[in-house]
């Protein structure tokens, strides 16, 4: 587990208590709602129940049923109504209950939410967040474990964020809510109950000070991707995001025992994409393995490999490898361990790299 990112260096202080990824998301929403009355939260079961993963727990009680509320069970309706509210001055944060249950909303997301700013020549901006719990590793049944990020990343006009640490869960969700562009916010559901020593009130102070800093780009505007090196290394770059970052870090630990120094890059945002950070790590190490849960064919992992080839070919000492899910519908709970990228599979990929000049 990563304990800190380079954006939040001073988090593991003595006062920091073990904090879950879920609590960080919840606090990010309540802090944003406290600051800005236009922020509202809705979706299926997010009110009284607090969401099936309890990410919105307590928001209705604290802010009232006008600020956090349940909707009829209709994902296209949720996304479409959110867009209308964003047109009319609100900053909706909507929850899709599970990755695959967001598919009824795809027409709204692809044909309107992603395109409205362009269609209106920038006159209508849609500051809204679509939260999607995604990925596997939790023993979920069919339709509860998809890694659907590539569908959205392929659609211009959407930003795609996916945090891998507790502090990023807080900071990136705050940033997504402040963004003038629609953000699809992918939450790795296997990380919901992981804990890190993080003081969320410190994070709030840090985030809000940065948002007020006029010399820096305003929070949420960030047109650049901001990938972070979460482990330094010299021999190979493990490039990952979301739920696979922790797997990459474990693989890097194991590789170190074999004398391989692996650097781990957490992309954090898929759109915008941080080409500069990718080039920097690949230029440094000369080797790359891309790790992602999603099926590999026509995937974000495929895009990363293509970008390395286009931009860093002459720095490479080895063909680039991918460790991804297989090109199959997500398997049943008892079989998912065979599908997901594992430490062993990453180590095998490292072995297959070209190590001799």
């Amino acid at each position: 587990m990563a304990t800190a990112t380079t954006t939040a260096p001073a988090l593991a202080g003595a006062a920091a208590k073990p904090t879950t990824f879920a609590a960080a998301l919840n606090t990010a929403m309540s802090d944003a709602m406290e600051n800005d009355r236009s922020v509202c939260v809705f979706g299926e079961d997010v009110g009284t129940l607090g969401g099936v993963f309890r990410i919105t727990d307590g928001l209705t009680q604290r802010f009232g049923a006008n600020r956090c509320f349940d909707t009829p069970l209709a994902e296209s309706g949720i996304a479409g109504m959110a867009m209308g509210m964003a047109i009319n001055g609100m900053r909706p944060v909507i929850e899709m209950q599970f990755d695959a249950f967001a598919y009824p909303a795809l027409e709204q997301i692809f044909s309107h939410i992603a395109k409205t700013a362009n269609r209106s020549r920038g006159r209508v901006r849609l500051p809204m967040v679509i939260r999607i719990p995604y990925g596997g590793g939790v023993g979920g049944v069919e339709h509860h474990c998809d890694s659907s990020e590539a569908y959205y990343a392929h659609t211009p006009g959407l930003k795609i964020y996916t945090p891998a640490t507790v502090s990023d869960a807080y900071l990136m969700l705050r940033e997504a809510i402040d963004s003038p562009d629609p953000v699809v916010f992918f939450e790795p559901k296997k990380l919901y109950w992981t804990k890190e020593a993080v003081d969320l009130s410190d994070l709030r102070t840090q985030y809000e000070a940065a948002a007020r800093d006029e010399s820096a780009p305003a929070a949420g505007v960030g047109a650049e991707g901001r990938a972070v090196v979460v482990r330094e290394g010299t021999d190979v770059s493990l490039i990952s995001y979301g739920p696979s970052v922790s797997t990459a870090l474990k693989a890097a630990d194991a590789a170190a025992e074999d004398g391989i120094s692996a650097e781990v890059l957490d992309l954090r945002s898929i759109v915008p994409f941080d080409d500069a950070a990718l080039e920097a790590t690949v230029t440094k190490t000369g080797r790359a393995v891309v790790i992602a849960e999603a099926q590999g064919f026509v995937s974000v992992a495929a895009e990363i490999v293509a970008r390395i080839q286009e931009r860093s070919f002459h720095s490479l000492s080895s063909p680039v490898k991918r460790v991804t899910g297989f090109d199959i519908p997500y398997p049943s709970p008892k079989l998912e361990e065979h599908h997901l990228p594992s430490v062993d599979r990453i180590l095998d990929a490292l072995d297959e790299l070209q190590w001799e000049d």
Partner: protein
Amino acid sequence: MTSETQEGTPIQGSHIKETSSSFGITPEQYMLPAAQQIRMLGPDGQLIPEEAQGTSPGHEYPIPEDDALLAAYEALVVGRRVNDQNYALVRQGRLAVYPSSHGQEACQVGAALALGTGDWMFPTYRDTVATITRGVDPLEVMVSFRGDWHCGYDPLHYKISAMSTPLTTQLLHAVGVAHAAKLRGEDTVVLAMCGDGATSEGDFHEALNFAAVFEVPVVFFVQNNGYAISVPLSAQTAAPSLAHKAIGYGMAGEQVDGNDMVAVLATLRRAVDLARANSMPLLLEAITYRMQAHTNADDDSRYRESAEVEQWKQRDPLLRMRTFLTERGVLDADAETRISGKAEEVAAALRLAMTTEPEMDPLEIFDHVYAAPTAQLREQRAKLADELERSQEG
């Protein structure tokens, strides 16, 4: 909120019970459309006696005042002229496409004139005349049909959404705009427009349901022009009428003669008033007819008889209104001259604008995708800029 009817049937939304009780009828009587469509002018332009207009308790629609009717007539004439001018421009190859509302102008005009300045309208691609009647310069609407950009007017300035090309997706945006306004305590009414074929789409259902559950003031205005491109309404639905769909959501539905300008304006105004006063949605179905093909790419002789089109010519909304207002003494020769002169001015401006090719900057395609272009889009923009520069040199 759930309340009980006399029969003990749960009815969603206390406003329905309050609204219906003020008419002395049950929620069901209130929500079901009147026994016949509301019609005030006969096909010959004669005012129908009040007892034959289709009204009944809870379904009563006062005739708008003469000034409003004259303004509606003017908009009808201008709208008809714009429809026919654009149809001609397409045939001359100067417009890429134009979905004409020729024959449906009473619905178009009524939609725009029933709304206040703070209200919102969500039109479809066939609602150019509604859009210009609400104040958008026809040239700004034509920006999309001549292929310059997807939307040429500022939706926030006019409170008119970009015309929707996908069917009924915009109804949900309408619900959202109304919901945001309601949460802020504003009394904005939103008019959400769609056609008969669109009522088969899933988002039609989701929008009506959301509007009813959240009790937001949206008037769903369906122009039933008989065909979804080629498919007749009988192949879209087995419902007794589209207006009957309202009761399933716990809202009131009504049917109106969509070629009767007086009745369209009267019913839409009442719907807007009820929606605003009670913060509730309503569904209004206007029975009308698309006199021309779906677009220039369509051949309507493949799916309908010319005799049917001829029959609908006899119910032309513009002629009915002209006869009515002339006989009522509201429209005289001077007014007619002034109005047709205005229509010609609008048409001439359209023709002139279409003879000049606007300056388009190809690099603009990168500018609005995000609030600030990504590094990737900046790279691609530079690549296109370089291509353009080299092609100019070459």
